């Protein structure tokens, strides 16, 4: 991959990757970090990669980076959130207007990953298998359970707000 092709990848995939990472993390700053990390790794491995596989490689790398590094930070943040639960709960309600996005918190990382790739990026089941390394049956089961969880969460949230 040439530097020119790399810059083309930035133009074409950066926004989608940012939205995907934002869906994974639920935080713009963390999503920004994940995007930068993914593109930095893409640049380091540009000689081994072709532009055709760059898109799926970016999403896969962003997800793995999130799994590897972001979980630790999130664990610490969750601890702090427990300490300030009363304050943050109200502010989150004000900031997070999208119910589905708020409902994503009930999903596991793997469920969010598959669901975001499927719904945001429109990957086929086979492509999801390549990206996640899961079998076709597992992908389908994860997707079905994710949607079922989201539905239950949305019903719960709608009931609470009403």
């Amino acid at each position, binding site marked *: 991959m040439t*530097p020119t092709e790399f810059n083309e990848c930035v133009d074409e995939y*950066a926004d989608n990757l940012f939205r995907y990472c934002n*869906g994974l993390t639920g935080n713009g700053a963390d999503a920004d970090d994940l995007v930068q990390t993914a593109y930095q790794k893409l*640049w380091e491995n540009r000689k081994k990669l072709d532009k055709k596989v760059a898109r799926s490689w970016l999403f896969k790398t962003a997800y793995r980076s999130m799994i590897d590094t972001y979980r630790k930070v999130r664990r610490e943040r969750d601890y702090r959130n427990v300490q300030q639960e009363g304050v943050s709960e109200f502010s989150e309600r004000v900031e997070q207007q999208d119910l*589905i996005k708020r409902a994503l918190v009930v999903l596991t990382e793997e469920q969010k990953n598959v669901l975001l790739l499927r*719904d945001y990026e429109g990957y086929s089941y086979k492509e999801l298998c390549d990206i996640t390394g899961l079998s076709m049956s597992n992908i389908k089961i994860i997707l*079905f359970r994710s949607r*079922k969880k989201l*539905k239950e969460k949305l019903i719960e949230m709608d009931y609470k707000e009403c």
Partner: protein
Amino acid sequence: MKINIDKYEVWALDYLEGNLSDHQRQMFEGFLEDHPDLKAEMEGIGQIRLVPDETMVYPDKSALYKTHRATILPWFGLHYPVAAAVAFILILGAGYFIWEGSLWPASTKVSDMTESPNPVIQPTSPISGTEEMVTSQQEAGNHEQKDLSFVPAPSIDVEEESVPEKTISNFTETQKHIQERQQDLSIRSVTIDKSELMEDEQPVQSVAVSTMEKENITDSKQHGQTVAMLPVQEGLVASPARTAIALDRPSSSPVSREFKVHIPGEFLSETWSNINVASLKEKVIPSFISKKLNL
């Protein structure tokens, strides 16, 4: 493929996304009729879709752009030739030093020979010194004569360098003198033309001479008395003009033989080259001198 309660989720997703054939769809709908709880569970799931927010864009794409920088590598592609050249130079240098080192002893011999262009011939037997030294010398001579009892001519002349006698004022000078003399100790090879030997009908095959047949060290404080002397050489020299000692081995044409000079007696196993200053001092200087000088 039969639908059961354990595998229904795979069928359910395909059913919701419309990926089942008519036959499969009818089969699944029949399964849902048999499980009304699952049918209620599936209601509304088909409407759950995540819709990306297209207004959300990455804030700073310019930070992600990379510019290509051409790197200038003057040695690019020349690593192996340069490495080969360096290795060749190193090997050449090592070979030169080895070759130079192999020439060094020869040049030393030549220089030694040129330093004493007029060697003084001194007889071996008349040696002045203390009784002890004379005794040891005679013992050494007797030992050699026993070994060479077949020699027809008992009178032997030895050709050697003239060794100027030095007076020793104190122990420091004694050590210095011994060190200087140690450097002078060397093995000389003498080439003797067989034709010359034949003229004199002396069947000498090969001989060797020691440049240090004897050495006298005089202590001025001891009234000019000879205080040290090295024993005679192992091989004896002969020349056409002098008496020679015949050896057993036949020879051909001019023979150049080289013998290591050994100190007879208890030092037979050691050569001069192996003796350092300490051992020289300990072994060569007679005990009575050591006692007097408190060495």
